[in-house]
């Protein structure tokens, strides 16, 4: 008898949990701050980059300045080329990375590689391409789940306590992931053009730029050109103070590289003198990214 009573009690409890759970989930969602950067969308974004089919005319290769600075949709509209952004965080321009990027280009027709160069992309730490490898190391099932499900389940995004603190302080890091094309429109509230300076100083003090890698890079793009790929090189604009620091600490590494490549007959795209705005000193705001994409789109259109 007591057992039956306890079972009936358990049944009632289970029903109560089942009813209360969706209510609690909605209540939490209403109370907790709205996320300006979704961790589940982020995972879907990276998984989709790896799983993207080889259907593109143009692929953008580089680090976070590339995937936050070049919007394939805008460029496609201007140039008529089907574009995909294959940028990864802290990416180094190794042959292996470039090879994995050109796999996204379709087999026939025009094949354009837009490569964003930075001094960092020739540093030892970047050339390991740890971020790219970490995504490639996800199991097949993980990749599929993240690519296909996460963008639909982002109602259940995890909330970091720092998101709560930031909401109270009215600060935010905004990342709008364009899962279909590999672009992340980014902004920060408030803007701080000097935020990245200290980290970059440390980085340049600790890391050496590898000249041998520069030679391999040049050999790689020569090889791509010989195979019929149209290679376009650019330096994505960023905060003025950081540009000065990077040029000073790298002994004008990128400036010299662009000059050399231009002299060797490669397409070197030079953005206009537009008032480029960076939210942290290192990456373009979404508005500036749109402007840069417009300019690059026009440039690629003119190349036809």
């Amino acid at each position, binding site marked *: 008898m007591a057992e039956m009573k306890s079972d009936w009690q358990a049944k009632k409890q289970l029903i109560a949990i089942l009813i209360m759970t969706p209510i*609690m989930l909605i209540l939490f969602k209403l109370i907790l701050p709205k996320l300006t950067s979704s961790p589940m969308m982020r995972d879907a974004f990276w998984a989709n980059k790896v799983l993207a089919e080889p259907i593109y005319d143009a692929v953008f290769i580089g680090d976070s300045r590339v995937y936050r600075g070049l919007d394939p949709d805008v460029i496609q509209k201007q140039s008529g080329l089907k574009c995909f952004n294959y940028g990864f965080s802290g990416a180094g321009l190794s042959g292996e990375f470039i090879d994995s990027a050109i796999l996204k280009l379709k087999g026939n027709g025009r094949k354009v590689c837009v490569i964003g160069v930075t001094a960092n992309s020739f540093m030892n730490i970047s050339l390991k391409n740890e971020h790219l490898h970490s995504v490639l190391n996800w199991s097949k099932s993980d990749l599929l789940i993240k690519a296909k499900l996460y963008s639909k389940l982002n109602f259940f995004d995890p909330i970091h306590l720092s998101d709560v603190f930031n909401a109270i302080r009215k600060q935010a890091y905004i990342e709008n992931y364009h899962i279909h094309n590999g672009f992340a429109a980014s902004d920060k509230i408030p803007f701080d053009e000097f935020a990245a300076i200290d980290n970059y100083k440390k980085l340049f003090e600790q890391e050496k730029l590898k000249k041998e890698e520069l030679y391999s890079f040049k050999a790689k793009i020569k090889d791509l050109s010989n195979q019929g790929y149209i290679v376009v090189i650019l330096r994505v604009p960023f905060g003025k103070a950081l540009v000065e620091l990077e040029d000073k600490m790298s002994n004008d590494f990128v400036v010299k590289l662009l000059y050399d490549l231009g002299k060797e007959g490669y397409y070197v795209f030079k953005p206009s003198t537009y008032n480029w705005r960076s939210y942290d000193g290192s990456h373009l705001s979404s508005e500036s990214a749109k402007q840069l994409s417009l300019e690059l789109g026009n440039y690629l259109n003119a190349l036809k």
Partner: protein
Amino acid sequence: MIFNSIPFLVFILCFFLGKKVIGSNIKLNWIWITAMSFFFYGWWDWRFLFLLVGTGTIDYFCGLKIAEGKAKKFFLYVSVISNIGSLALFKYGLWLARSLDQCFDGIIKTHFEDSIPAFTYILPVGISFYTFNSLSYALDLYKGKAKKAESWLHFMAFISFFPHLVAGPIIRARDILGQLNKKILVSETLWLNGLKTCLSGFFMKMVLADNLASLVNHHFTAKSAGADTLTWWLVMLAFTMQIYFDFNGYSSIARGIAKMCGIHFKLNFNHPYRAIGFGDFWSRWHISLSTFFRDYVYIPLGGNRKGKWRTELNRWITMLLSGLWHGAGLTFILWGALHAAFLSLENHLGFAKKYIKYFVFPLVLLAWVLFRSTDTDQAFDVYRHLFSFKFEGSIKEVLFSNGAVWLVFSFIYDSKWYNNLKLWRTKKVWIQGLIWAGVIAMTIYFRGPEQQFIYFQF
């Protein structure tokens, strides 16, 4: 497949749905449990299913022979060699070969590493757990403490039962075979209790352990440069709680699922950081492993029955083996040695013994440095930071971090006060519903970055 993943959610729903259809038919239950457990294990790497089935089958046949009383000792040795052999090959083979190559380096060129087969470079998930489960069968049969399995399927259902398969708790044949061999009717009360145990396990793992992991991993991968003494104490406190909630979380999920199937697993953790001595700590921490080593190593060696020195020796052998069980590396052996030293010290303290309780937690924390470090160099680097008394680093940054907030909460969560709150034991249905719905919502929204269970690597 890990418990805190979407595929597992689908898997477990299918499992219970199938179980509902099968009902209490014993043989169909064995088939269902075995098939689903193979699927669960094969999701990670189906090739290692052969190892699981292979060693399991050897143990089953050895068990048959031992039970028949024919060449009992011989078949016990076959079982021990097959289990310890596969464990040695996969877990210690590469490490041993590398260590030997390094040892002889400069004297003679050896190539032990090259002679190790490539397939052993991958450590099969849960090998340390399922080989011990399987081994306990032959050992218990030999001692007459267990009955033989009814059939190969009965045995495989025990050995492969997915909740305990990859990260324990280590279960004994004598505890489980009997439970699997009777019609189990799971009452609503038992099912609900199992669900609650599971949910609290998920909370411990996904909220507490995973949020603490971010703080710990950041410092252990950043090569510790720049962090000061206070920061490192905070990081080690975080790891002390992380490993507890990570493993206790897993054990709770495993116990909960088993309970929902009507099978009882013994408790694996009993508030170990409330221990008042090192012996007490080991009777509360990873209880299934401690008792395994006690019953199958320490006692057969003579335990404390052969004099003072022999007791010490037995204790050290047991603890060193326990360290080695955790991983192939000097850090794990040193970790075992440190705990052996603590236990020895505790036994020779005399009047000072009553003060030991104040030292258990800090010393256990210091031993975790060895456990967490990738090598001895990193471990000694961390010890240097812990005792350098340099107070000019990044403590402010760490104190206000996500991990630090969860560290405070993890201490509250494990406190007597929190656990004894009358609220948790209320009989009011709607309050209970509210509490557990809150636990589910918190687990979903406050989960940390997805991490594997620490004990998967063992």
